[in-house]
């Protein structure tokens, strides 16, 4: 096997559930390179869980194929299971076992020799800050501890590919930061990671590549930086100004002047409807390829139109804006 073959390869994947009218996954193809952190994003019901189900051998595809480290998931699930680990959203820890046993039994299921698994369990428990409570049962564990324990369990058989399903959902900020560090560390040691999340900030910080799914299809698949360029105009300059004059005259003049600046794609007037807004305050969002080049001309435009400049700031569009741009605002 060449080291250049992808860690995960999905080709024309279709899954139709027995009683469903539409395909849960509808012709999905993507690759995840070795050593990559790949984010699979999408609204609820987009088909992420089904896709992961196929990759983790729990769901049989209707059409298409998927392979992990060049091993086909439907033809050779035993070899696939040896290479993957799954950290689910909700705890599925074995509550009849003690914490340390959860790790050692998991490794035993995977054929890790006794001495190796005992040593590895202790090492991981210490690394994940669970060393002092290793002889308890998990009933008394907090959500954050359970999450860490599931990660430790996943690492016990030294998988090549790790699936993390909304890993930091419901965690406190401390646990979240801790997990992010661990995820980066595991990745640095060569582990390929596929993660799903609704936290766009998390996806942006962790993922080297992101695919956005909706209605069973992949809409885009690129780096976070490239995805942000999908927003029309690319960057945003927020302009706050003030005028003592009554009426909409000055506001329209400022808007017109901003629009006239070369390179501006679009000017949006922001309605200051909330009660805290000072009378006479004006606010605009100016979309442009390079908003930072507009700071001078924009200030000039505001002054020329007869208003005072209060604040100018350049904003990068967030991944959240990209996500909403791609998948729309309606609830699922």
């Amino acid at each position, binding site marked *: *096997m060449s080291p250049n073959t992808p860690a995960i390869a999905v080709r024309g994947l279709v899954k139709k*559930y027995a009683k469903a009218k539409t395909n849960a996954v509808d012709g999905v193809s993507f690759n995840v390179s070795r050593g990559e952190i790949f984010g699979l994003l999408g609204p609820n019901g987009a088909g992420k869980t089904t896709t992961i*189900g196929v990759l*983790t*051998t*729990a*769901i*049989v595809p209707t059409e298409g194929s998927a392979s992990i*480290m060049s*091993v086909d998931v*439907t*033809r*050779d*699930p*035993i*070899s696939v*299971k*040896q*290479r*993957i*680990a*799954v950290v*689910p959203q*909700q705890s*599925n*820890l*074995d*509550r*009849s*076992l003690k914490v340390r*046993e959860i790790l050692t*039994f*998991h490794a*035993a*299921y*995977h*054929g890790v020799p006794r001495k190796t698994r005992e040593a590895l369990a202790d090492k991981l428990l210490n690394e994940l800050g669970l060393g002092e409570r290793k002889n308890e049962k998990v009933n008394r564990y907090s959500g954050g501890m359970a999450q860490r324990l599931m990660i430790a*369990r996943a690492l016990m058989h030294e998988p090549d590919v790790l699936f993390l399903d909304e890993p930091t959902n419901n965690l406190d900020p401390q646990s979240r930061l801790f997990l992010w560090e661990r995820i980066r560390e595991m990745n640095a040691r060569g582990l390929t990671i596929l993660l799903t999340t609704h936290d766009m900030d998390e996806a942006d910080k962790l993922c080297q590549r992101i695919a956005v799914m909706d209605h069973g299809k992949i809409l885009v698949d690129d780096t976070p930086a490239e995805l942000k360029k999908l927003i029309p105009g690319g960057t945003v300059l927020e302009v706050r100004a003030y005028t003592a004059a009554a009426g909409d005259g000055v506001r329209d003049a400022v808007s017109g002047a901003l629009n006239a600046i070369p390179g501006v794609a679009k000017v949006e007037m922001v309605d200051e409807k909330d009660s805290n807004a000072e009378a006479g305050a004006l606010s605009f969002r100016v979309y442009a390829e390079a908003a930072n080049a507009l700071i001078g001309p924009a200030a000039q435009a505001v002054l020329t139109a007869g208003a005072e400049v209060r604040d100018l700031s350049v904003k990068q569009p967030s991944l959240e804006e990209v996500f909403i741009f791609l998948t729309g605002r309606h609830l699922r």
Partner: protein
Amino acid sequence: MSDVSSTKVILDGTHTERGHSRSFLAFNAFFAILRRDIRVTGREFVPFLLQALMQPLFFLFIFGKVLPGIGLAAGNFATLMLPGIVALTGMIAAMQGVTLPLVLDLGFAREIDDRLLSPLPVWWVALEKVIFGAIRGVIASSVIFPLGWVILGGGFVVRDDRILVLIGMVLLTGCVGSTIGLLMGTVIKPDQISLMFTLIFTPLLFTGCTYYPWGALRNIRWFQVLTLFNPLTYAAEGLRYSMVPPIGGHNFPTLGIGWILLLLGVSVVTMFVLGTRTFMSRVVT
């Protein structure tokens, strides 16, 4: 079976790229999972015994000692009932070891996921449950013998010339219980547990010829026929065949041992196939 079995899954002696053969990995995972169940039950061995033995203990005492003692039951009633108690206890212990954990696991706890993701064919996880349940059943059945000896005293009579049949019957009874447990555990939804236990356990308990020999039912023919649909009937009759000593030079009349073994075998295979099918459809979609 679902579409899984139609795809030919590789399970052979060829090595995975990580060095072990798939069959080695699968057997290793199977025994590790079995060891897990034994460890967990071993840790709760006393509660397990109490759960399995409380009912038979009182049955033996009331029906084997008290009723004959006050003249409400014939003296040899205990001898005829003891095999029934052995069958019932083994079957229930085996079923309980499989059904309840499966209902909870497949319903919401999903603790079984870790085992399903182990490198073995998914249906082996169901097979492991069945074998583990059968072990529980055999242990529970076996403990009835010393218990009966203590409680019944002189009323404890077991023939010793059919010991191999007896051992076979105890093993088979455990398998019958655990395969029924597998089917129940995969069919019942968590919110139906208490209803289903009442609807299934109670009839099973009372139509299984545990407290009466099958032959004695000939005056209530329809009921005698009905009991033939309960696997427990065959387990109890088979144990009577191997345990009840001859009376006045005649062997105690039971259902034919050939039929008993055949029908118990059929029950084990049928329940296992049906149970594994529903199990697969619950864990692989």
